[in-house]
């Protein structure tokens, strides 16, 4: 089989992994090729609008597992291929030198057993880093069940590691991935976290100490393959951030690739739901929200017509309206239509002069959303009444989502 065919098969098998980011590492170029940009760089966008920053491939798609949702399951009749470490290194470096990519994202199906697979991955990154002197970004999958010593040695060479949870509940795993369980996934995650933290301490004392997974670890959850509500997904996310110090949790709208009586039938992948989860994810990480504020048992799913922050604000109107010239940073962040950049700008601009609605517009605040929740120099321009129903209607009108919904005639 030639290289092109292998690339075709093994990129196709890897594309359902949504992680693409190349940020968070400051690896510098030590006399070879490549470095990491801390902000991350996107190099292209594929036809589905997702960014391409890493050469995302599987090492092999021969798999001993038979997970129902996965395209590479053992019982599927698909073309199989395996790279050699040399081939992966050659592709990565040739692409990198032409500035096609920011680095390598290497994952793998489980061939023979977890240890053997992990060894192959380690061999590949060793070749890239130590033989070819490649200093670009590398994201590697840790294989659950592999020897911790192998995972440790790999961690010293790569920028980011991830273990995919895929299904957000134990029941889901039991049903769709009977050969995996929660413990076998969380164990390597905990192991990596412990060593990242240890490494950070070590590097405070010895600046030259080698880095261990400097860009942190991430995971992926499939949304819509099993019946968990958003609340459960978001609570899981929150505990992953708090207990495992993850850098990112990715959500992947379920795309049916196999047919099975255990899998739901979907006409379209739930893309809007995925989008709402990402919005909520940002609120958890950067805006000081907690999962319990955004959703609860009585309100377990996100409203598809309003973004999570709007939805929270509308249910908690007693916090509003907020005076732009007085509110503290934490409160500004909670106003719909205000982001981190505009909140910071407001803080520095109002030191010079008191702001009014015109100034906010210039700063980049999305007034059509914020206007219902703020006052400027004591003035409120949101409308004559201040209640939830009125705002839902007005905000709903400006949210494009409503455009393609049939309006009810008689209510």
């Amino acid at each position, binding site marked *: 089989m030639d*290289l*092109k065919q292998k*690339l*075709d098969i093994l*990129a*196709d098998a*890897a*594309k*359902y992994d949504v992680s693409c980011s190349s940020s968070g590492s400051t690896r*510098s*170029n030590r*006399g*070879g*090729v*490549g*470095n990491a*940009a801390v*902000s991350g*760089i*996107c*190099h*292209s*966008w*594929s*036809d*589905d*609008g*997702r*960014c*391409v*920053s890493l*050469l*995302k491939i599987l090492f092999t798609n021969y798999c001993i597992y038979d997970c129902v949702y996965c395209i590479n399951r053992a019982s599927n009749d698909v073309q199989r291929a395996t790279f050699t470490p040399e081939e992966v290194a050659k*592709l990565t470096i*040739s*692409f990198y*030198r*032409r*500035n*096609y990519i*920011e680095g390598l994202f290497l994952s793998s199906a489980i061939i023979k057993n977890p240890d053997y697979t992990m060894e192959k991955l380690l061999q590949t990154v060793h070749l890239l880093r130590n033989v070819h002197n490649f200093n670009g970004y590398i994201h590697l999958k840790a294989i659950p069940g592999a020897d911790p010593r192998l995972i440790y040695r790999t961690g010293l060479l790569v920028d980011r590691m991830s273990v995919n949870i895929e299904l957000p509940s134990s029941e889901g795993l039991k049903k769709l991935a009977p050969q995996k369980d929660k413990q076998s996934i969380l164990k390597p995650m905990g192991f990596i976290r412990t060593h990242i933290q240890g490494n950070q301490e070590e590097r405070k004392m010895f600046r030259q100490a080698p880095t261990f997974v400097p860009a942190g670890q991430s995971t992926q959850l499939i949304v819509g393959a099993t019946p968990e509500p958003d609340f459960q997904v978001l609570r899981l996310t929150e505990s992953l951030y708090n207990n495992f110090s993850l850098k990112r949790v990715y959500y992947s*709208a379920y*795309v049916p690739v196999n047919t099975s009586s255990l899998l739901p039938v979907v006409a*379209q*992948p739930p*893309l809007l739901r995925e989008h709402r989860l990402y919005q909520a994810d940002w609120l958890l990480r950067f805006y000081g929200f907690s999962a319990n504020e955004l959703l609860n048992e009585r309100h377990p799913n996100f409203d598809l017509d309003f973004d999570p922050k709007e939805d929270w604000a509308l249910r908690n109107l007693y916090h509003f309206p907020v005076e732009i010239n007085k509110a503290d940073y934490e409160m500004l962040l909670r106003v719909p239509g205000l982001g981190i950049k505009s909140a910071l*700008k407001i803080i*520095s*601009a109002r*030191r*010079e*002069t008191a*702001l009014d609605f*015109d*100034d906010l517009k*210039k*700063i980049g605040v999305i007034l059509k959303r914020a206007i219902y929740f703020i006052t400027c120099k004591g003035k409120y321009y949101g409308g004559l009444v201040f209640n939830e129903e009125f705002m839902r209607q007005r905000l709903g009108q400006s949210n494009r989502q409503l455009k393609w919904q049939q309006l009810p005639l008689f209510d």
Partner: protein
Amino acid sequence: MIYFLYDGSFDGLLTAIYEAFYSPIPPTQIVTHDNFIPNLFSEERHITTDLEKSEKVYKAIKEKISSTALKNIYHAYLSELTQIEIWIYQYLKLGFKLGVRIDNRVSDEIVMKIHHAERKVSFENHRLKGLLRFQLLKNQVYYAPIEPDHNILSLLAPHFARRMADQNWLIHDLKRGLAAVYSLESSNTQKWSLFSLDKSLQIQFAEDEELFQDLWKTFFKTVSIEERTNLKLQKQHMPVRYWKYMVEKN
């Protein structure tokens, strides 16, 4: 209406600004010789670039305003937006009055203009760090043609000098006839420099080049998930005007 005409270099602009601060009647416009269109009321004054004067202005901005302000005006200058020079002059006038606080005045029209131009330049610079494509030529030089909206070559070059440190490369701005060249043989500590380079350059690919372009196209096509196709989103992130030199989009 007094028009200050300068040679288009950054030092030239700083010299013009120096002259503007010391002339009894401030300029209505500051433009390059090439962009100047005389009209009935225009009175021209030719500014000769003077490195001593430009150095003075450079240092004064850094010390009396801030290095951020210096970066802002350099990026604004690179934006090549029409009339940006006179806005730079206004911004500096305000800056010498307010000092480091100037960049907090985000609702001031002058500050907004400069910040806007700065953002455009920084954004395109970041964008092209990703979208630029090298092709390996027969003489073992990696060659990248670009046609950016703004004159960002001097910002791109240091990035690639750090990153592609062990290969000879050349980034060619076809719109401006400029090139950044990085040579391993260079004896200077800074291994890249800017040259003017003719637009009609003949190039010849190295042997393997087409093979790797083909592999990349294969990967690019395969990695997209068909059920999620969203061409509008793709174009939003990667405007069509950049596609011309992108291997996967040709």
